[in-house]
């Protein structure tokens, strides 16, 4: 069974149709890159999969492990194994990162009927993953993302991905606002999470990120649809020819 099946998805935001019949199939172990110009609907797709309010699905469906994802609340999707790494992770003053991580992990485990992590086990796990991502301990004591640099915020997203062990990771413009060193650290973290049971959908405007996270498939989106799919060489082709050819195709 496919992990994620998006079939003929149509989505509106305030009377304006953003996605006009988008289809995408993702199997376990695969990495898919979704590329496209600004306004092509890439982020909308990621938001609709994660369950962000404000989007109206007017047609089509999304199946996750064969279940209707659109009927689930964002927290149910998370517990089922959907993880969205935000393009702009929010700052939450007054909620310590450690408290947030433990609350989230235990909420997901509880929803799956699993026992909660004991504090020592949890701390051990967080410390190990944080060290591998160069996340210093004092960052974990601060409010969630408060005062973090762009790179630190993205690493914090990867840290969560590593802790929650989702089966589908959607990385929304992970490279935005990162310099090359910060990008490499975050990408290494993502690559460490590649596994035959886990799939990733990497949304990006630029080919650059795909030098670090090498995809199996590349899809080009334009005006709310996938207009071309191919292997990783498609990304390189786009780098030289640009998106203009597809704007006409759509």
């Amino acid at each position, binding site marked *: 069974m496919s992990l994620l099946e998006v079939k003929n998805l149509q989505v509106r935001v305030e009377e304006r149709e953003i996605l006009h019949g988008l289809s995408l199939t993702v199997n376990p172990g695969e990495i898919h890159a979704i590329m496209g110009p600004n306004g092509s609907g890439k982020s909308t797709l990621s938001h609709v999969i994660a369950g962000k309010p404000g989007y109206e699905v007017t047609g089509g469906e999304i199946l996750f492990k064969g279940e209707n994802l659109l009927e689930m*609340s964002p*927290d149910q999707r998370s517990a089922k194994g959907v993880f*969205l790494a935000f393009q702009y992770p*929010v700052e*939450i003053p*007054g909620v310590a990162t450690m408290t*947030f991580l433990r609350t*989230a*992990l235990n909420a997901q485990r509880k*929803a799956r009927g699993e026992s909660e992590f004991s504090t020592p086990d949890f701390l051990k796990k967080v410390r190990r993953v944080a060290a591998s991502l160069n996340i210093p301990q004092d960052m974990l004591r601060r409010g969630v993302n408060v005062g973090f640099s762009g790179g630190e915020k993205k690493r914090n997203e990867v840290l969560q991905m590593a802790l929650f062990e989702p089966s589908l990771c959607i990385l929304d413009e992970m490279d935005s606002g990162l310099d090359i060193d910060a990008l490499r650290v975050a990408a290494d973290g993502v690559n460490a999470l590649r596994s035959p049971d886990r799939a990733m959908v990497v949304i990006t405007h630029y080919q650059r990120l795909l030098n670090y996270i090498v995809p199996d498939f590349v899809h080009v989106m334009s005006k709310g649809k996938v207009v071309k799919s191919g292997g990783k060489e498609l990304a390189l082709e786009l780098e030289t020819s640009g998106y203009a050819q597809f704007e006409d195709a759509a």
Partner: protein
Amino acid sequence: MNVVLAKTETANATSDVIAVARDRLPGTGKVADLRRQALEAHQRLGLPHRRIEDWKYTDLRVLMREVLPLAAAPDAEALKRAAAALKLHAIAGVRRIVLVDGVFAPTLSETSDLGKDINIRTLREVLEAGDAALQAQLFAPDNSDAMVALNSAMMTDGIVIEVADNAAIALPLHIVHIASGAAPAAMFTRSLIRVGKHAGATLVESYIGAEGAKAYQVHDSLIVAIGDGARLDHVRLIEDSREAFNISSAVVTLGANAHFNTFGMNNGSLVSRYQAVISVAGEGSRVETNGVNLLNGRQHADTTLFLDHAVPNCSSREIFRAVVDDRGHSVFQGRIIVRPRAQKTDARMMTRALLLSDEAEADNKPELEIFADDVTCGHGATTGALDDSLLFYLRARGLSEKEAQALLIQAFVGEAIEQIANEALRELAISAAQRWLAARG
């Protein structure tokens, strides 16, 4: 025309209350004279209403309507019910002093082995046989506010605490006000704490109702005098029955280089008002006054603070947070006055309200009056709902809607709770907030 009529009715009602209570009110001679003056003032003013600027948002003629008769002195049954309530609200690591239905309850209190550094007496003792200076201090609050005047006229008991100069009292003193009975009645109490020069103490006041105690009225006041170089940490916890009324006033005076850290948490009572006048009268003093209201149902809670900077080189901080659900109504009025002599004053006030429902209401009224030219003063007020982008982030990480809200609300009130200096009391406030959040379901 209506106003005059209402006033007359209230005044008559209060006269009846007083007439019935007369032989239970301690003090004769000068004390009785002062009571009479206070009563006359109250009758002249009647219950506060919306056209009295200070009471604009808390119209007691509408919300409370009348002053209930004085509660009977507690009998053995009442004390038993109070003891049961006390068990449910026990705080560890404090010295407990209990007032049941407005009367000191020695059997429930821990007032033995006080040592030489603290002297504790009841208000009754002091009014009946205390020295004139202390009696005068107990009547220091003037009669311009109708509810303070009523309290002066009717105070039946309370706790008078004197902390000796240079004493460091480690164990917090905890005054517990318990309403024991099902019969609607009113309690009138006044307490006083005098912290000697260079001394330090912690005072907790909490208000609870025994099982079955419902629409009772608490009329309380506190007089605080902090000596030069002394420090008082103060925490108030309003956990009254959800049908109860709690009208409390405080008058605080700080000497030179003194420090007052006060925090109030209100998640009980139907209608409450806490009005405090803090006079920074000695140079080099610091005041931190913080609070949290957690309201739902039809609860109404009003915190009205008046900070009076009269002398140079003092600082004050006010952090207030209100979380209002259902049809709750939170009021915060903070007035800071910086008098001409009070140069180098550093005064700041920030009040924020979080509305969890469309019908919730919050009124924030910060006021700054500055008559000195070399000061740092600021105030701010915000009212809003929870941030949708934060809620979605948390939900995308697996938290249910309620869990996500709870985490954000805890962070919101945390800013005020963190200001409590005593760690055990800070934990107490945090767990009170968590209980409130858990009860939201």
